[in-house]
């Protein structure tokens, strides 16, 4: 609690913390670059119909799901790669990737005690509270967070299940949900992101191995944050997780997602799909701190993060809020979106994206206004440093029936150093004369005056930059749940390390 308050009220103190953290890292700039040595089970490299069938049988899919995967696979084969993004994406050799890698286990663990201690150790290193007792033993007043941990292709553990079950909340891996709640999965899977949506989502539909599933029943306010932690560990492995969250009428859930990967010289593909469904009067808050390995200073290695995230605000008065802090990945291609179908529904997108060194990001959102009096709000803060290149790409579309629709968009970019790029590409489309849309964007750098002012008060240059950047991002950071905000804020300082010329 106190540290979170410090974030809000005393940015200077927190900038110091950031600087200390940077110092403590020494040469190991990517804190999560370690690898876990654990016995893995792999399917052969490459993708074909047999691999899809193999994954399906490993997951003990019902027949309809296998068919769905196969349909997706056949569409995927003829589908072109997206070309419109600004980063040049090197040709991906889809046959040189493992599509199934799982920690070897003879039986499914029944409780955390049966999970391989090495795995638990990995998550401990990442600072993820998998063991419930650790959370309980933590600082007094620390909120409980239920965690679903996905290691390479499979979910290894889900905590707090019992507490949640008491409320009727389902929080489990999606492969489990396929068996325990087939009617929900069948009804909603692919209903927001159809498998034919784009090349990456299509591949995911064919080969997804795990991910999280959440169902919040009518009128239930989820008593704790739900969280998934994704970890790519194995070499040459793609990660294709799939998340499905359904908030039934009048319910509320806050969901956190974190991700890391070891430091490797080759590029690894992460092609996830996230689908959110909010029914009447329901609200979903989805927060991401994305810290996949970004590659080294020369752009060697790093994750290709090609993710399709979309929410359907189906019900009247429903609300979905996306918050993302993007600091990792070699290439990011990601547009968390909202389809505002229900009358009076609300979509929000808050984003901080930091690119440094040779990182490239093309990220933003889409807000599709279909229902009456739908509202959307977009706040995007982009920081580009080193030789990085970053693009905000966002679509706001108002359809003829969306009487009284409102959108406000604010996109600000900050450039650090003269070798990076920052671009803003909004698409604003209105077909309703009662809609009101407003877009503003600015691009600037940290002014010499600001910097000098900080230095003259005794701050180091990196400290000063971290401080100013944190101020620049404040509006977005404030929307993160507290325990995440502190983490994210530190990450900003670390990500910008070495950006001062």
């Amino acid at each position, binding site marked *: 609690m106190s540290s979170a308050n410090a974030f809000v009220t005393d940015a200077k103190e927190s900038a110091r913390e950031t600087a200390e953290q940077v110092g403590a890292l020494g040469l190991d700039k990517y804190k999560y670059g370690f690898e876990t040595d654990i016995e893995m089970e792999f399917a052969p490299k490459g993708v074909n119909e047999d691999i899809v069938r193999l994954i399906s049988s490993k997951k003990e899919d019902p027949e309809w799901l296998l068919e769905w995967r196969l349909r997706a696979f056949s569409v995927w084969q003829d589908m072109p790669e997206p070309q419109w993004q600004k980063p040049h994406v090197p040709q991906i050799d889809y046959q040189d990737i493992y599509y199934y890698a799982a920690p070897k286990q003879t039986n499914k663990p029944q409780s955390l005690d049966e999970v391989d201690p090495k795995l638990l150790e990995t998550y401990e290193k990442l600072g993820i509270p998998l063991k419930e007792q650790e959370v309980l033993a933590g600082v007094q007043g620390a909120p409980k967070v239920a965690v679903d941990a996905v290691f390479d292709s499979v979910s290894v553990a889900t905590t707090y299940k019992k507490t949640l079950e008491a409320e009727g909340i389902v929080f489990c891996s999606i492969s489990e949900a396929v068996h325990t709640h087939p009617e929900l999965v069948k009804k909603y899977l692919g209903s927001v992101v159809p498998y034919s949506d784009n090349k990456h989502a299509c591949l995911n539909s064919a080969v997804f191995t795990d991910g999280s599933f959440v169902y919040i029943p009518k009128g239930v306010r989820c008593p704790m944050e739900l969280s998934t932690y994704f970890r790519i560990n194995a070499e040459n492995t793609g990660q294709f997780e799939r998340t499905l969250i359904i908030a039934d009428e009048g319910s509320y859930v806050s969901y956190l997602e974190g991700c890391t990967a070891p430091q490797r010289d080759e590029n690894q593909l992460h092609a996830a799909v996230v689908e959110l469904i909010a029914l009447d009067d329901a609200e979903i808050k989805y927060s991401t701190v994305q810290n996949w390995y970004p590659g080294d200073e020369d752009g060697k290695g790093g994750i290709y993060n090609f993710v399709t995230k979309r929410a359907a605000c189906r019900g009247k008065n429903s609300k979905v809020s996306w918050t993302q802090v993007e600091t990792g990945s070699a290439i990011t291609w990601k547009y968390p979106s909202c389809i505002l179908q229900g009358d009076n529904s609300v979509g929000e997108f808050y984003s901080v994206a930091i690119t440094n060194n040779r990182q490239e990001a093309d990220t933003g959102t889409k807000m599709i206004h279909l229902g009456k009096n739908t509202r959307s709000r977009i706040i995007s803060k982009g920081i580009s440093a080193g030789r990085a290149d970053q693009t905000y790409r966002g679509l706001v579309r108002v359809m003829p029936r969306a009487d009284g629709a409102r959108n406000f968009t604010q996109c600000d970019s900050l450039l650090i150093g*003269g070798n990076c*790029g920052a671009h803003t*590409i909004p*698409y604003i489309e209105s077909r309703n004369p009662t809609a009101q849309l407003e877009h*503003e*964007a600015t691009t600037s750098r940290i002014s010499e005056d600001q910097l000098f002012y900080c230095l003259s008060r005794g701050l180091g240059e990196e400290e000063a930059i971290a401080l100013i950047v944190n101020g620049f991002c404040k509006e977005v950071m404030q929307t993160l749940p507290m325990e995440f905000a502190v983490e994210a804020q530190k990450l900003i300082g670390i990500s910008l390390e070495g950006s001062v010329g």
Partner: protein
Amino acid sequence: MTKEIENFLSDLPTRREEGWKYTDLKAIGAVAEGAGWTSAPAARAQRLSETGPLAEIDADTLVFVDGNPVVSDETSDIISVMPEGIEIAPRPGRPLHLAFVSTAIDGEAFASSPKLSLAAKAGQHYALIESHTAIGTGNTLCMPRISIEAPRDAVIKHAALFDESAAGFTLSRIDVTLDQGAEYDGFALQTGLGLTRREATVTLAGEHGFARLGGAYVGRDSSHIDNTTLVVHNAANARSLQDFRGVLDGESRGVFQGKVLVAKDAQGTDGQQQHKALLLSPKAEVDAKPELEIYADDVQCAHGATVGAIDQNQLFYLRARGIPEDHARAMLTEAFLMQSLSGISDMAIRDVFRAHLTTRLGDR
């Protein structure tokens, strides 16, 4: 027909191409497949006719009838017609009116692609007027390309009026290059009934250059008005300003694709861009894509875009003073567009534009 048009027609851009996402040229293809596009017969070129409201501005006038230049005694010493295009040496201080008139009547489909290059002199001031009007109601496809080289400290003021018929397609392109300290101040008023796309590219190639692109448009019936701009900052300490406003009624569609590109060495750039649109009808549409592409860090760049309806507070305020609702709406619509005309420095042109705008708003 020119090679250029033939090539263009044989490979029409489609909406799958990013730059043509919002402007569909299928109708041009349909004419090609139907009556077929032809060049206007030379005889027509003798018919000099009225060139719209800008005719009342005293200027050297160069008329293009269906794409063919009509050279008069007045203009013979400033233009030379070359195989690769028309070279023009405008007189400093004397306005030059480039008047494009379409005369095609029903059943005809005239295509032309006049190519003009203007050479200005260092330190001199020029006033350029451009108009696109129609006498006939037949199909016309006019693809004028104007290129302007502005050497050191030259100043060019440019006012353009696009007021074509419903069967007119105008795909115009203007490319301006500004050397050190040079200025380009352009304004386009678009009120035509057909399909108009104006691509304007200004390259700030020298330090301390200044470029302004202004525009106002009225979409009515099923008109389609597209402004696609690109301002390239290649040199340091230059300034650019883009300010477009549009009103869309009927089933019309407005498109604004504006881009500010700041190259790596263009430090000290100030680039501003704004597009505001007012939608008046449930069948009208507006699509805006204001873009910033920036590779230098010492910059001040911003863009803003709004789309909306008439402000209810303003409407109530007018009505509370006894002004009937229809009248109040018309006043606010006109005021919305008139604000952008204040960017035109030549009072005579501003007055002509104001009057024309009022007429066209009344025609809705």
